[in-house]
Every structure is written in C-alpha cells, then in structure tokens.
C-alpha cells in the first residue's frame, strides 16, 4: 500500500521500527512479566529524538503533526504497546500546554519534554469519573496568588514516573464541570503524593497509578488557559489524542498478524503447514484486511487533524473505536490459529491479546465514543448538512 508519507515520516517510521526491534523486542517479555517501567527504552527514545516529534520546532521539537506521532505509536506498539503508551502519555500530557500554554509556560516545560529529560502525564479520571468525566471531585481553590489542590486521580498512565502532570480540577466546584480548569503540577510539589500502583491485565510495562493531592499549593502561573475552560480543553485534547490509540491498536494487531503468519507457515499438522488449510487462510486474510482498513482510517484521521480542521470529534472517535475493536478481534484470532502455542507466554500473541483490551476502554470507552459519533450524526442531520 502506498501511504504517501513525507521523507520525514518515512525516517520516523523506520527509526521507530529499529528502536522497537533492537531495543524493545529483546526485553518485551521481561518487561511484561516484571511490570517494570521501561526507563532504558525511554532513554533510547529520547536519544533518537522521538519525544521531539510532537513538540513545536520553536521549543526544541521537530514540529510533527498527528500522523508523525501515529507512526511512532504504530511501530512501537507492533512490538510492545506497553512501552508505546508510556511514550504516548508524555504527548498527552503536553498537548494542552502546546495549545493553551503561554510563551513562558511553554518555554519552561516543552524543551524538557522534547529532550525526553522529563516525562509528562495527563490526569482526568477519578473514582467517580470514568466515562462520566464531568463528575470529577478534585478541587483547586484560589488562595494567596496560587491554587490549593485536593483530591485523588485514578488510573493515571506514567503516574509516579512522569515529572510534569496535566491535572484537571474544579476551580469553581459550585459550577460543576463548567468550573473546571487545567493545571501543570510538577512531581515533588509539597502535598502531591503517589497512591496505589495498579496491577494490570495488559500494557504491563507501563505505570498506572493514583495521584493524591492534599493541600497541594500550585502557583497561579501553572494554570493553563483560563479558569472554567478545563472541560472543553480536555475534550479537544482527547479528540487529538484518540488517533494515537488507533495507531497503537493498529500496531499491536500488525504485530499479532505477523507472529501468527510466521507460526502457521512453520507449524505442520495433517502433513502440511497450517497455512495450507483454507480455514486458516480465511482467518489470516480477514486479519490482514482488518488491520489495513484500520490503518487507513487512522492515517486519514491524523491527516484531517494535520490539515488544520477545526473539529474532528467524529473522525477521531471512529478511528479509535474501529482500530481498537479490530485489534481485539485480530489478536484473539491470532491466539486462535496458533492454538495451544498461542496461549502460552512463549509466544507474543497472548500478551498482545491482553494489551489490545485496554484500547477499547481508555481515552473514551468504545461505547461512550459511539454515543459521541451518533450525537454528531444527529447534529448534522438537524443542521441539514
């Protein structure tokens, strides 16, 4: 397939693939088993300028768009999506800063993120606010020229490992979500603690942790954008980041497809390699079709964002939903055609199947996103578009 990449995109893709194969592949199973944060790989990614991809050029980045980031995500996920999401969370933690930060805020934080010296993270979810993101309880009350944060964020990717956190909190609790704002909070700020470290089904190389704020004082200069705009800012941020989850799902499905293809070419049953059986061929072909279709939807969405489109809620939800459902099916089928071997940890597909599940859940559950897509359909019909 011809994807019409720029030279830079081709370079990004081939270098990301090289990092994945040379640095991640040898330790993939161990990272999964040990649930160990991949610091050495984060350093390799930093040394290769991968954290610069999503940062504007004037802040020591490479000024890449959504597609550039998707290519890194896809290639890393093809080998280990646990590592990929640790990388992606730094991008997620940077978007609001890039879009709404003042020159001073950007100058302070973005070069550090670009150099990979400090990881970033984004925190919205709370125990009361999953799909119902409007139900957050963390507060940030203005006091003496700063804000005092109280509350607990849950399931935060890169929690404990990142040093720069993008926190959504209520500056005006009476107004509910319309009183939400976004803050940059640095690790080691007094009153900012890390709580429970989660034990997960998949993406186990990544860190998922609670963030606890107890009278944590944040300087007023750390407010991003304006007070009360936290929710629309966050929704826009997630619209931007969802194709990245689509790319993650596409990459991990591609990895499963390749692993399964290798296996069925070698495994002999009934006197022939498994791939000689039509039953296997049908499954394998459907897997390949699905991966390619998802990839194209992800790329098209990323390109829509990069074209400067004003709104892309629907496209980005579609890319995420389609690719993640595809990844769940493709990885499950990979395990199926590899049979008993596929179920064992000696082969990578059982891990990929575990890793795929989260892509249907995080950054908007696929059901919540379908609701959003349906809402856009209704809106368009009402406008007679």
């Amino acid at each position, binding site marked *: 397939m011809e994807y019409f990449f720029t*030279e*830079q995109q081709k370079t990004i893709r081939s*270098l990301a693939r090289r990092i994945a194969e*040379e*640095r991640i592949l040898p330790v993939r199973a161990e990272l999964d088993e040990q649930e160990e944060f991949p610091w050495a790989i984060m350093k390799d990614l930093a*040394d290769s300028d991968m954290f610069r991809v999503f940062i504007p050029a004037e802040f020591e980045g490479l000024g890449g768009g959504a597609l550039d980031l998707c290519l890194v995500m896809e290639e890393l996920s093809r080998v280990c999506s646990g590592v990929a999401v640790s990388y992606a969370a730094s991008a997620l933690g940077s978007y609001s800063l890039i879009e709404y930060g003042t020159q001073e805020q950007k100058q302070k934080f973005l070069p550090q993120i670009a150099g990979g010296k400090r990881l970033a993270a984004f925190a919205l979810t709370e125990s009361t606010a999953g799909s119902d993101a409007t139900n957050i309880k963390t507060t940030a009350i203005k006091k003496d020229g700063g804000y005092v944060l109280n509350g607990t964020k849950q399931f935060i990717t890169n929690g404990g490992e990142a040093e720069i956190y993008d926190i959504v909190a209520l500056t005006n609790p009476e107004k509910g979500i319309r009183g939400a704002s976004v803050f940059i909070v640095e690790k080691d700020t007094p009153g900012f603690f890390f709580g429970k470290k989660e034990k997960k089904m998949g993406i186990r190389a990544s860190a998922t942790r609670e963030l606890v704020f107890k009278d944590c004082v944040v300087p007023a200069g750390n407010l991003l954008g304006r007070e009360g705009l936290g929710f629309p800012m966050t929704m826009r941020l997630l619209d931007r980041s969802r194709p990245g989850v689509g790319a993650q799902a596409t990459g991990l499905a591609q990895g499963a497809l390749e692993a399964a293809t290798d296996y069925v070419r070698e495994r002999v049953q009934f006197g022939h390699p498994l791939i000689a059986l039509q039953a296997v061929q049908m499954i394998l072909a459907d897997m390949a079709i699905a991966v390619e279709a998802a990839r194209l939807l992800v790329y098209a969405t990323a390109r829509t964002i990069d074209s400067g489109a004003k709104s892309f809620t629907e496209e980005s939800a579609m890319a995420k939903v389609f690719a993640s459902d595809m990844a769940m099916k493709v990885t499950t089928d990979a395990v199926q055609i590899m049979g008993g071997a596929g179920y064992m940890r000696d082969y990578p597909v059982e891990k990929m199947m575990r890793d795929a599940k989260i892509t249907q859940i995080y950054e908007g559950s696929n059901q919540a996103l379908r609701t959003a897509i349906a809402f856009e359909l209704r809106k368009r019909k009402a406008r007679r578009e």
Partner: protein
Amino acid sequence: MRIIVCLKQVPGVTTVKIDPQTNTLVRQGIKNIVNPFDTYALEEGVRLREKLSGKLSGKVTAISMGPPQATEMLREAIATGADDAVLLSDAAFAGADTLATSFTLAQAVNKLGYDIVICGRQTIDGDTGQVGPEMAEMLGASFIAYVSHIEDINNERIRAKRMVGDGYEVVAAPLPAVITVTKEINLPRLPSLRGVAKSKSAVIPVWTAEMLGVDKGRVGLSGSATKVIKVFFPQRVQCGEILKGGIPEQVSRLVDKLREAKVI
C-alpha cells in the same frame, strides 16, 4: 579535541560464499553493514565529545576506506553523532591488506589532524585486529588495544582499562593516541531524527590517492605485503568407521578396536 573514528563496511552475513572460479567473495545480493565493533568506536568518540563539552571543544570525524557506496555508512555515522565524515576511495586503494589499509588511513588521519583515533578491536570479515596497531606505529602515536573503559582523558593524556587474556590492565599514555575498543565499552546509540536530517544534507568529501599525496606503490594491492595465492574450502573427508549391529556386539567390537590401537 580532534577525535577520529575509523569505520569499515563489511558483508552483513555470518557465512560468505566464495566464487570457485575467481576465488573471491561473492558480494552480490549481500547487504553491507558497518563492522559491528566499529559502532562501539563511534559511540565512544561521540561520548568523549559529549563528556568533554564545556571543558574542551570536541569534533568527531568518521573515516573509511572503501568503495563509493561506503558513503551511506558514513552518512549513518553522522546520523548517529559524528560531526562529519571523509571517504577514502580510489581504484588505487583496491585490494589492500592491513598494511596498505593502515598506511592509507594513517595518511588521512595526519591530513585531518588528530588527538585520538578510535577503532573497533577488529573487523568481522578480515578478523585480524591489525589495522589499529599498524596505524599507531605509522603515525608514531601511543597505542592501547582492547580498551573496555576510558577512565580519564584530557588534552595531554589518556588513562584506559584494557582487556587482557586473564583480566584487565589500566594503562596511561600520552596523546596523540590510537585505541581499539571492545564491545564492553558501551552500548551504541541508534541514529536520531535530527542526526538523520543533518546526515541527509551532509557533504562527504571523497579523498583519492592523489589528494592524499601518497606513493601509489604503498596503497592498494601494490602496497600490500599479503599475497593471496588461493582461497579454498577445506576438503571434506569422510573418515572413521561406524560400528553396526546390536549394542553388545558394537561394544565388544569397540573394545577390540581400542585394544588394537593400544588405547586401553
């Protein structure tokens, strides 16, 4: 500090085929790679520059003697941290053994000016490990082989740990120096995106025998002390005897034979 790293392009395979007619390596269809040991040399050069930055200004130049396509390898060296690169390429350099290669590289190193030259411990195709020491001799520079760690380096001297057969030695030597490094010394980084961008536009000069001002009798095949008379596969000879029959029968025949041979 002027740092020069020597790189060689080698066939990226573990077994090579020899053309039975010409007795030369079959290179068609074989992808060339940078000699793996040389990647450690490049990494160490780049790390030296990074470590010294602030104290001494450093520059890393990658050099290679080889055919024009070795330019691609040098481009990757720039993508991986070298500041610039020079290719030594001339029909007159072809067929060089280690002596002629060392001579040619030494001329280029002299022309560039240097404080330290870093080479891999050996190549995976020639496997001699001679080019580093020979070059040091020709340059009249200090030489430390099999360096696994540079403990200290300044404008005047280097102190390094070198691997020896049954342990290691710590050696100090005045600069300028040539060192060869082992794979224990570091973990080479991969290229960076900014490095790749820089390497794409980099101009890599090609120096010929004339530009180096060398006597053509000392380079390439004519400057080589090694003459390859013949390259051949060792003949496969079937020998030995396979005992047949049941286990007790085989054992008794084996014992007889060993007695005959006065082994037991």
